[in-house]
């Protein structure tokens, strides 16, 4: 059992009367690829938002590498090595894909951006191109983000999160809004990259086939609580999960088999 990279201790968040997260205790070890499942409003995104410092928890603690990140700003947590992607790709629509990448490269350099030296340098172009290769989006390099297809935006979004070579990556529904033809291709690309970088991944996903295929462990949320946590087979087999989360009888063996 390798070192714990992310741990939450009885993490709780309430919005008025609504409890979006109740007493969440999660421990994720280095190198794990964890899927978080749960119906809408189960508290998955709230969990990610809290962990990345976007939402302050009502109570509880979050430890990244053993240090509490409570009260830190998202940018600090990012600099500590925890990056995230978004349910709706968060990009710079009026900039080109290349420029989007370069901005994230500048950010990843750790120093404050220079106000005289140009953003567009051969070195950054080179690195950006390499990344585009990895994610197979090279042909959109010079297109304005607002004009590229949904799937590509998702990829660019994730690529930008990975530019800083984080040690942990949180993916918020990577395949939402992506056609079912594209989604496996997309996940294959992403997963090959993260495996190659050796990034610990936690991703929220609706699509059980996706989850079952790529993860080593599943955490199931239901109305702000964790109702199951463990290897895909056992969690997907869990009766309450089947009832509350999946809502239909999924063929566990076939689903899990593919990923093994």
């Amino acid at each position: 059992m390798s070192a714990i990279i992310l741990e939450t201790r009885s993490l709780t968040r309430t919005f008025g009367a609504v409890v979006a997260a109740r007493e969440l205790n999660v421990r994720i070890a280095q190198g794990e690829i964890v899927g978080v499942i749960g119906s809408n409003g189960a508290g998955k995104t709230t969990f990610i938002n809290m962990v990345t410092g976007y939402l302050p928890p009502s109570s509880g603690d979050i430890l990244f590498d053993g240090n509490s990140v409570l009260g830190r700003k998202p940018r600090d947590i990012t600099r500590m090595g925890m990056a995230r992607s978004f349910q709706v790709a968060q990009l710079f629509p009026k900039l080109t894909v290349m420029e989007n990448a370069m901005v994230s490269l500048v950010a990843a350099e750790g120093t404050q951006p220079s106000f005289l030296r140009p953003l567009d340098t051969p070195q950054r172009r080179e690195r950006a191109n390499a990344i585009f290769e990895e994610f197979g989006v090279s042909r959109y390099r010079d297109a304005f983000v607002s004009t590229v297809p949904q799937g590509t935006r998702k990829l660019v979004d994730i690529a930008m999160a990975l530019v800083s070579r984080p040690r942990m990556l949180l993916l918020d529904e990577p395949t939402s809004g992506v056609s079912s033809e594209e989604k496996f291709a997309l996940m294959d690309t992403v997963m090959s990259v993260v495996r190659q970088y050796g990034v610990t991944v936690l991703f929220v996903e609706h699509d059980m086939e996706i989850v079952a295929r790529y993860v080593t462990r599943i955490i199931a949320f239901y109305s702000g609580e964790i109702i199951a946590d463990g290897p895909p087979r056992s969690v997907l087999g869990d009766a309450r999960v089947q009832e509350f989360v999946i809502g239909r009888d999924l063929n566990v063996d076939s689903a899990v088999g593919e990923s093994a």
Partner: protein
Amino acid sequence: MSLRKFFASPTEPALLLAAAVFAAGAWVMPAWLAFLLTLALAKALVVLGVVIQMRAGLVSFGQALFYCIGGYGVGLASQYLGVGDAFALLALGTVAATLMALACGWLLTRYREIFYAMLTLALSMILYGVLVKSSALGSTDGFNVSPPSFLGWVPEGDARKRTLYLLTVFAAGAVALGFHRFMVSSLGRVTEAVRENEIRVEYLGLSPQRMLFANYVLAACVSGLGGGLTALASGHIDPDMAIWTTSGEFVFIAILGGTGHVVAPFIGAIVFSVLRTFAIQEAPNTWQMTLGITLLALILFLPKGLWSLVDRSKPEVSA
């Protein structure tokens, strides 16, 4: 080393050339035109400050604050500190504006959209009020700025005006070069990214507010320089420099020129000055209306400003 190495982009030699053309004009163009251009170029520097904020998604309705501080910095320094040298005066004015920006930028850059516009407006109106109250500084009459010396040399009459014109052209050229580099620099592009999506910038590990703050200070700095040059050229300063309609005029010119390129505000300012002086001459009773209609026409038919006439090849930043 070769020129190509020396210049970051082909725009730079072109800018130098344009500056040279303007400078050469000093000996051929009528005096009134030289004076008009002096004020226009000085104004363009302030507008440049508005423009870089627009590129970061913020519209300042109080840029006159720094225009005024720059002007009063120059005026007070020559009046009470006995500083006579144009360069020293401009430096003082610019520094004063920059210090002011450092003092209030941290607060202002927490705000966006209308709130930013309103707060900047409020700040400049507070300065206006203070100046109007201080009869020692001539209240609304302001006071005159005595003609400066240039590194010990004190030109007279036409020579003075020409020197001031050349100084302004020089300053404008230098600033244009610097800001052209800034606009394509890492920080310059990141401020655009902030306009596009603050959350993403934050999650890339950068502080949007810090970017905007740097941008704000830079804008204040150049606006202060513009104010200082105006004070030297017109030889007079008064609180109207800080009133909100003055800021409105700067925004007007920014829209007129567009935000697409460093030269856009310069085109905007020159066109505006020419347009206004002829509007006043041909229609002394309805020149405001003329300006208003022009502005509307621009927004409706030329939303990216005059610059889009020069450069139609890409969708452009809008306020």
